[in-house]
């Protein structure tokens, strides 16, 4: 039968094509590096939690980009891989400096935020940023007096 090889090769091709699709567990989004700094009265805020809340549909990712500031108040966002940044789009930025609290044997920053409350909620925060393809250097985020 001359027609036999064609369906067979099609079947093999379909299986080979289907494999990578079946193995990819999650939908991944393209992220762009996002770096910035958190300041309060011109002083750097260390150990603050910075979360980018998507406002546009292009920014929707399986989880919100997140970062913690270092001693100089600097941060680099992580969405899926370390310091990978955030997907392209418009974001509302929340900044919290949670009060230290004892949990188990350690003090964890898990109490109420020590920064003005409006910065803690995506509905009330005045901080906005649009992530664009390429490197993103967010202008310093001023989070008001403590």
């Amino acid at each position, binding site marked *: 039968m001359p027609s036999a090889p064609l369906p067979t090769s099609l079947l093999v091709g379909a299986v080979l094509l289907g494999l990578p699709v079946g193995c990819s*567990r*999650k939908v991944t989004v393209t992220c762009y590096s996002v770096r910035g700094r958190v300041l309060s009265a011109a002083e750097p805020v260390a*150990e603050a*939690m910075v*979360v980018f809340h998507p406002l546009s549909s292009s920014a929707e990712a*399986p*989880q*919100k980009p*997140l*970062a*913690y500031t*270092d001693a100089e108040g600097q941060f680099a966002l*992580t969405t*899926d*891989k*370390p*310091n*990978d940044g955030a997907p392209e789009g418009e974001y509302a930025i929340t900044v919290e400096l949670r009060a230290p609290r004892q*949990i*188990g*044997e*350690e003090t964890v920053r898990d109490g109420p935020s020590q920064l003005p409350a409006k910065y803690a909620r995506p509905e009330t925060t005045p901080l906005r940023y649009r992530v664009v393809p390429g490197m993103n250097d967010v202008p310093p985020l001023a989070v008001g007096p403590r």
Partner: protein
Amino acid sequence: MPYPRGLRVACRRGPARTVHGFTLVELLVVIAIIGLLIALLLPAVQAAREAARRSQCANNLKQLALAFHNHEETYKQFPLAISDPNKPGKNNWAPFVFPFVEQQTLVAGYNLTIDWWVEPNRSLVATQLPLVQCPSTPEQNRVQDKPETTPPNKTGACGDYFTPAGVHLDINQVLPADQQLAATADLRGVIRWYEARNPQNRAADVTDGLSNSIMLGECAGREDVWRRGTRYANDFTSAPKVRARGGAWATTDNPYEIGQRKAWDTAFGPIPGQLGINNSNEWGHCFYAFHPSGANFALADGSVRFLTEQTNLSALVALVTRSAGEPASGL
């Protein structure tokens, strides 16, 4: 029956016998066939071994869950995740339930009013207990040895199981927009720690149903950090420091609320990857086991379930909370 040529030559008797033994090609073919058979069988053998380990792990969780129930039977309440902070002695649930799982000899000398890392408890906590170890964890018999500014170090043998104390609201960073948790939601777990509103854990508090609530889960491999199968060795001296907090089986760092993405040392970076089963064993994140594709869980009714990595996060939240009014379904 025709013999291979070489063999027939070897068997021939008489003075004409000249050649015997196998040719190189024949030997190579035989070796190749044996190699092929081993290659075919090895994965099956490994899978069978892992199945045995998983079943041993499920049995450990079953024993522990029954111990919690025997405790409840005796005291009309489950133990607290962490001993009451208003009373002396920092200990987690483990020494409270061990007398109910035939570990009386181990805890006979244990003083529950003394911190776990202080004698006489210190030398007992050094005991490696197969009961709290998952056999699938690559490194068995680990020891937590956390340096303290005032000695002694917090030192103890490690376990692979923990009691989820509830769900942290930070999980909203990961939940889809239409499944966000309200700030007022009751996110306490079955085995909760002491709070003014939660002086004890009673079976009656599990209003979502004992069969719909997780009591024990796996967080294996602590204090080494594991992120999606990659090991970062426990390190208290380098920068950043590396630690999956809560290794020792008696430490009050053992229980945590799931849903957080913060490393023990912030400089180690936020926990990457998609929050869910088997993403990271770091404190506050989620559940972590070394079983391929999922982890074992003991539910509050004493049954043991295997949940896959694909388990919907909202369903997992519903399973961890004990009285949020959403008995988990469709699992």
